[in-house]
Every structure is written in structure tokens, then in C-alpha cells.
């Protein structure tokens, strides 16, 4: 699957959002995912299929004021 994650294009084996989070090495409970400007709720990660050209944003909480 040829997609864009956090601004970088990459090839991934994952076919779903859940598989993608795991393939990239993250804990699904600690990140939030947006696919093509739409939030993908955690409950739907496993059943949301990726498509070529998808733009994914994967975010987490960090320190800030």
C-alpha cells in the first residue's frame, strides 16, 4: 500500500488502520488517527481499510502550555 503518513510517503504492508498503527510500532490506545482529513475512531481502526494515496495523520499528546 502506497500511502502518506505524517507528510512522508511510504510503502506499508498494512491493509487497515489498526494494522498500520501496529506496523509503525505504536500503541493504538496512545495515538489518534486521521485519514484524508477525517478522524478514524479507535473502535473502527480494525475495519477501516487503507487505499493507495491515503493521507494519514497520526498524533499523540505531548508537552505544551
Amino acid at each position: 500500500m502506497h500511502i502518506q503518513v505524517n507528510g512522508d510517503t511510504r510503502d506499508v504492508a498494512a491493509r487497515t488502520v489498526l494494522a498500520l498503527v501496529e506496523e509503525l510500532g505504536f500503541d493504538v490506545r496512545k495515538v489518534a488517527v486521521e485519514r484524508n482529513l477525517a478522524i478514524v475512531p479507535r473502535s473502527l481502526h480494525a475495519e477501516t481499510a487503507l487505499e493507495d494515496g491515503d493521507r494519514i495523520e497520526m498524533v499523540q499528546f505531548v508537552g505544551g502550555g
Partner: protein
Amino acid sequence: MNAPFVPSAETASDTWTVAGRTFSSRLIVGTGKYADYAQNAAAAEAAGADIVTVALRRVNLSDPSQPMLVDYLKPDRFTFLPNTAGCFTGEDAVRTLRLAREAGGWDLVKLEVLSNSAHLYPDMIETLRALDLLVKDGFDVMVYCTDDVVMAKRLEDAGAAAVMPAASPIGSGLGIQNRVNIRLIVEQASVPVLVDAGVGTASDATIAMELGCDAVIANTAIAGARDPIGMGRAMKHAVIAGREAYLAGRMAKKMYADPSSPLGGLI
């Protein structure tokens, strides 16, 4: 033998409420600028904070094992107040906070739409617009604002859950530069008022509370101190002292002296 200490009813129940959520600590701490998340967590504990502000950023794809904030500041110990730092438009703010809501269910949020400037004061026109969008999207919004008294009322009328005027520029540590405005904002407000930005040391927080603020937000004051844990503790006491002084009702200021010892009975 001394009588046992019994906390008064006032101190036991001097909680504050924002958007239907009740908190006992009146000190909110930021999570930026610390040496590491462990120091951050220790400072937040020393400060006795219930709420911590957090930002939302892309994960580091090249290092998934990098320490994460949630591993040190646990979401079951603290209420996270996601902010919109880095958002310059209302649309960016909505997008960011929707992700924060998805990441942890947080819908009490801090709106900050900063100007692109050295002073970083918020752009109030864009802030007002962003507030409308967020309220429509179901968020409870605490709004970072300038100490403009008229604007603070407009924010409240537009549905802000709290108004949060700056003492002085973010990270400046210059303390409250306009006590008159902060007092006026407190007097007119029917939502909580928090001083947010510019607090530099304990006395700044005490003054904010003596002016009648409901709570104080401090980040650099603690993270930038020589001893952040010590300053976290100091800020905790400072907020309590200011709040108790406010509730106790200070003496009136006088133009001249008013002796404390009796004038009669001198030898």
C-alpha cells in the same frame, strides 16, 4: 493539650467548577519546557495540580519507542486540557481538538489562537471565530485571551466556559501587568476567570488569586525555575494563600499610619 485541628467547612469545600466539572486544585500546570517527562510529572505532583495542559503533535515515525507523555502523566491521575498551540485559524483549532477528543475523550479544551509575533498575544478576532466553531462542535472551551475587558465579556456571551486573560506575554514571567483589568474581568464574569500566561513566580499567582481569579495556569514559571519541583510546591502554596486571603477579605489600605498598639497607659 491542644484542641484537634478541624478544617473549616470553607476550606474543605472551596472547589471550583468549569463546564460542570468540579476541581479542588486551583493551580493548572503546563507540560512544556521540562527537562523530561519524569521531571514534568514530579513538578505536577509537587504543584498538587488536578489539570495539566497538553498539546497534540505528530508521532515520531522514526522512533516509536520515544517516551510518551501519557506514560508519565497518567490520564487517570490528571485531567488533560488539550490546547490549540500552533493553530492560527479556527479550522485548525477544530481539527486539532477533534483529534484530542478522539485520543482521550477530552472535550474540555483550551483555545489559544496566537498572533504571529514576538509577544504571542492572541489574535482575538480569530479566537472569537474559532470559539463559535468549537462550541457548535460540542466542546467546552476555556479561552486564552488578552486582558481586554470588553472582549472578555464577548467571549463569555459567545459561550466560553471560562475566560483566561494573560498576565503578560507567554513565557515572559513578567507577572500581572494590569491588575485593574484582571479585577474588572473578574467582577463582570459569570464564568470562571483564570490568569494564564506570564506568571513568573509564586507572588504573581498569589496576586491573581487575591484579585478574585478562580484559578491560575503556570508553565514556564515552574519548568523554567532553577528547581522546578520546589517551584511547583511554592506555586501550590501561593495559590492557596491568595485564595484564602481573598476569602478572608483584606484590610482597607490607608493613606497614613494607624497604630497597632494602644496610645493610653504609657509608663
